[in-house]
């Protein structure tokens, strides 16, 4: 294997300590020394922080001084600092694609934290593989794509509203889509906000009114997102506007229809089902848009047909009723997307010991919000009584229900609700039973103290159970005061469950459409926990608000503004850089057999002068065409055959007698990032594995798999996105076909076919990744290393075996 045109390659190797993250586990001296000894490596250095200015400058200076052609950095995952180092080498006059990262932090130091020696050995293999990949890298030119100024914002709670207003004000075209009949989200339901006790509706409603008033915002309420396809700068969005059966332009929301509607007992969702609405209704009194709509599931005319009841139509002074209304589909294109789909409160029915389903006296904090609003308006929903207890951490910090995280807002909203109850009637006895009181925000501690001054009593203990004694109609609450170790068993008029937050159910659909990753807590995952807190694993898709994790209103608004600013950053330049992962043809090898033409899932390959030709604009870079070429004439930029073969060779070069090693080909969209998440979570898996990054598992040709087995791999794992989460929806089938061919050859040569395994992942399956990798490693270990003689036989007459006699 030689690089075309130049045999005198000069490679610089750098080992990053990552401030201890890497150097505390991996012996960086040994690793750097090892790197320095590799062929074509002219220098090998270490730095505490390669990504720092100093580290980057070191690379720039060395490139100039030592005339380097290629750079290899053993550091963190390329998804974090890849772009940083590409910029650095570009600054020094090289192509940004000649730098390679050996991901020794997420995929070595962190998951193998407890095995420093094995980790150091593995890091050598990884560094060596990266050196090979860099050595054969092509010095390609940077490419850009045009980008416009259109944004889709999904969800119109306070996060979506804020993001849309920021973007609209900045002159960007916003498509704001909300599935409910009104914008406003959960904040519209709240009584007051902590710690200032402003009335939530009073501060929110002017912002809501600003939305339809903004000429740059296209508002779609009562609308579902059906499908999103495409990529940054070119997202195609399909939405369906649900029928309201009321001509919105005509309706003046006079309320006559509501008054006349005979269906009166429909639980009002906005009031958490505590009050009833009619079949024709408005979402709430300050809704935007504040027009009427008909609920098709309960309206007599819409459920039973003509002639039963058309009262609203008869009385409407504006002739606004239209029973023939139909769903309207609409399609538009956007350049970036902000996901602000928010949270659902924890369903306390899951926590049976608190009796939410059993006792009327047990309510959620959100129900109490609505009750306080109704009381303040002079029409209380019910008498809450004199003695009220709040139970904290319901659906938070609780392994029994699989929610380990703190929901962050419950301590303060309970303090607020307790204060409001005490204000409105100082005779009330209010108790808050807490595990730890977290008053971390601006003004929170002071607010906590104010509540204590008001007479709200804070008792440290997690409530064990809520029950009713047979001789009483009140609920009893049992808890230990952990500070005195005394058991409290006392009756209460009302028990309020301070329910935690979870990802909203409707988010799953959006996350799947956009192939977004989730973090361990089930919320959507940011691209970097510190420096990219509103970016996602998808370029051009951003997060705002509680969809990323529990947060209060100020944090939500700050994040929404951050998300719009990140979106503007991409769109304002008019173009953005893209990675040239595109298939290409080695014309000298192509014999014009046309086998590849049908293989391409996007029809990017055609024939031109008896040679295959790839259309760069159409090719998505999956690499699945490569397997169809008997002459290896098809290749993929940034993941060329030479590069991958070099990586495989070097990854296995350090393998010792008696060891078994598995190679994990990880697709960039899901599996590679999943492996990074596993490392970040410090979940441990076998050190006998090396991960090789590919754009898609379908890039891994049968020849490459067999070559890996010949070169010393004892197991091959191919990880790919699940179909609905994959940028290459066809890839699953292509990989299955490739793996089946390899299995057949293995069977014939007496090698266990189980050694080659294919699994589809989504980015949240952390445990699944660990189990699968460990599983394959133990299959390889139990079966033992494959004898070299068998390995060699695997690649004999390989073309004939894969493509038939014609292609010997």
């Amino acid at each position, binding site marked *: 294997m030689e690089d075309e045109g130049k045999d005198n390659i000069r490679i610089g190797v750098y080992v990053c300590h990552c401030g201890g993250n890497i150097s505390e586990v991996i012996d960086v001296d040994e690793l750097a020394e090892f790197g320095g000894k590799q062929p074509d490596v002219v220098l090998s250095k270490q730095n505490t922080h390669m990504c720092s200015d100093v580290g980057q400058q070191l690379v720039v200076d060395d490139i100039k001084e030592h005339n380097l052609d290629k750079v290899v950095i053993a550091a963190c995952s390329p998804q974090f600092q890849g772009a940083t180092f590409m910029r650095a080498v570009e600054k020094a006059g090289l192509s940004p694609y000649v730098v390679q990262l050996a991901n020794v932090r997420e995929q070595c130091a962190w998951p193998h934290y407890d095995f420093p020696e094995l980790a150091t050995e593995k890091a050598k293999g990884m560094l060596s593989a990266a050196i090979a990949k860099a050595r054969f890298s092509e010095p390609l030119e940077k490419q850009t794509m045009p980008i416009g100024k259109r944004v889709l914002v999904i969800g119109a709670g306070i996060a979506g509203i804020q993001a849309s207003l920021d973007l609209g004000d900045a002159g960007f075209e916003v498509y704001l889509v909300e599935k409910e009949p009104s914008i406003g989200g959960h904040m519209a339901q709240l009584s007051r906000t902590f710690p200032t006790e402003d009335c939530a509706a009073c501060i929110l409603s002017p912002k809501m009114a600003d939305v339809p008033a903004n000429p740059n915002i296209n508002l779609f309420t009562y609308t579902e997102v059906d499908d999103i396809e495409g990529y940054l700068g070119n997202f195609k969005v399909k939405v369906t506007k649900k029928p309201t059966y009321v001509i919105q332009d005509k309706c003046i929301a006079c309320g006559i229809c509501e008054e006349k509607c005979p269906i009166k007992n429909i639980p009002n969702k906005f009031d958490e089902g505590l009050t009833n609405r009619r079949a024709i209704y408005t979402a709430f009194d300050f809704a935007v848009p504040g027009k009427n709509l008909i609920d098709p599931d309960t309206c007599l005319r819409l459920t039973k047909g003509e002639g039963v009841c058309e009262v609203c139509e008869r009385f409407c002074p504006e002739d606004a009723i239209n029973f023939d209304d139909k769903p309207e589909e609409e399609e538009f294109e956007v350049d970036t997307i902000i996901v602000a789909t928010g949270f659902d409160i924890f369903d306390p029915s899951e926590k049976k*010991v608190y009796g939410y389903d059993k006792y009327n006296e047990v309510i959620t904090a959100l129900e109490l919000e609505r009750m306080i609003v109704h009381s303040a308006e002079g029409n209380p929903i019910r008498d809450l009584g004199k003695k009220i207890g709040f139970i904290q951490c319901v659906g938070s910090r609780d*392994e*029994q229900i699989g929610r380990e995280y703190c929901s962050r807002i419950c301590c303060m909203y309970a303090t607020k609700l307790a204060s409001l109850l005490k204000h409105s009637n100082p005779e009330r006895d209010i108790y808050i039973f807490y*595990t730890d009181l977290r008053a971390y925000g601006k003004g929170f501690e002071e607010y906590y103290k104010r509540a204590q001054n008001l007479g709200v009593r804070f008792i440290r*203990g997690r409530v*064990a159970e809520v029950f009713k004694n047979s001789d009483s109609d009140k609920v009893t609450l049992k*808890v230990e*005061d*952990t500070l005195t*170790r005394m058991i409290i068993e006392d009756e209460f008029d009302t028990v309020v469950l301070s329910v935690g937050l979870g990802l909203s159910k409707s988010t799953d659909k959006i996350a799947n459409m956009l192939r977004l990753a989730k973090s361990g807590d089930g919320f959507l995952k940011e691209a970097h926990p510190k420096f990219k807190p509103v970016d996602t694993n998808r370029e051009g898709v951003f997060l705002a608000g509680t969809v990323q994790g529990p947060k209060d209103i100020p944090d939500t608004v700050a994040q929404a503004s951050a998300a719009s600013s990140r979106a503007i950053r991409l769109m304002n330049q008019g173009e953005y850089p893209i990675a040239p992962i595109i298939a290409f043809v080695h014309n000298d090898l192509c014999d014009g057999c046309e086998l590849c033409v049908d293989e391409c899932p996007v029809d990017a390959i055609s024939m031109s002068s008896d040679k295959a030709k790839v259309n760069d604009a159409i090719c998505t870079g999956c690499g699945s065409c490569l397997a169809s070429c008997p002459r290896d004439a098809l290749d993929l930029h940034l993941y060329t055959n030479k590069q991958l073969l070099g990586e495989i060779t070097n990854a296995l070069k350090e393998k010792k007698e008696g060891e078994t090693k598995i190679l994990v080909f990880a697709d960039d969209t899901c599996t590679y990032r999943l492996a990074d998440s596993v490392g970040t979570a410090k979940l441990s898996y076998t050190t006998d594995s090396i991960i090789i990054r590919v754009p898609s598992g379908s890039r891994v040709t049968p020849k490459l798999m067999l070559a890996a087995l010949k070169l010393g791999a004892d197991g091959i794992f191919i990880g790919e996105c699940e179909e609905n989460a994959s940028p290459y929806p066809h890839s699953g089938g292509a990989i299955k076909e490739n793996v089946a061919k390899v299995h057949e050859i293995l069977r014939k040569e007496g090698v266990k076919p189980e050694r080659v395994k294919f699994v589809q992942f989504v980015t949240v399956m952390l445990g699944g990744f660990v189990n699968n990798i460990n599983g394959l490693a133990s299959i390889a270990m139990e079966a033992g290393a494959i004898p070299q003689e068998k390995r060699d036989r695997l690649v004999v007459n390989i073309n004939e075996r894969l493509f038939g006699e014609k292609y010997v």
Partner: protein
Amino acid sequence: MSDKIKISRKNVEFLKKIEDLSGEVIMRCDQCGVCSGSCPMISEMDITPSELMRKVQLGQEDVLGSKAMWLCASCFACTVRCPRGLDVSKVAEALRQVNLRKAIDHIDLKDIPDDEIKRLPQIALVSEFRKFTG
């Protein structure tokens, strides 16, 4: 005046020992008190289960003299409710083991009159052996 306690290496050793015997990471207990509120034997106990856990966390060996561990019925009410996924009954068992391994015989079958042995429920004898034959 309140008692002073020492927090030193030695205390950590006691904690380690109980963690090893119980298999529970006792330091993960965040002292929420759900175990105490859930315990059906609480009214008979001298210290609550959460206090027992705290004393072990601090390495206070006087916990070995408490009655609470012997009253634990292993009903697992605490275990199924512990928000940190700890099994307090296993910690109580570990503490009982430490006591039992001192191997002090408190009963001798020979000393029990035959007719009493006949009258005693089997489970009482079994549990006596279980407790006192370490």
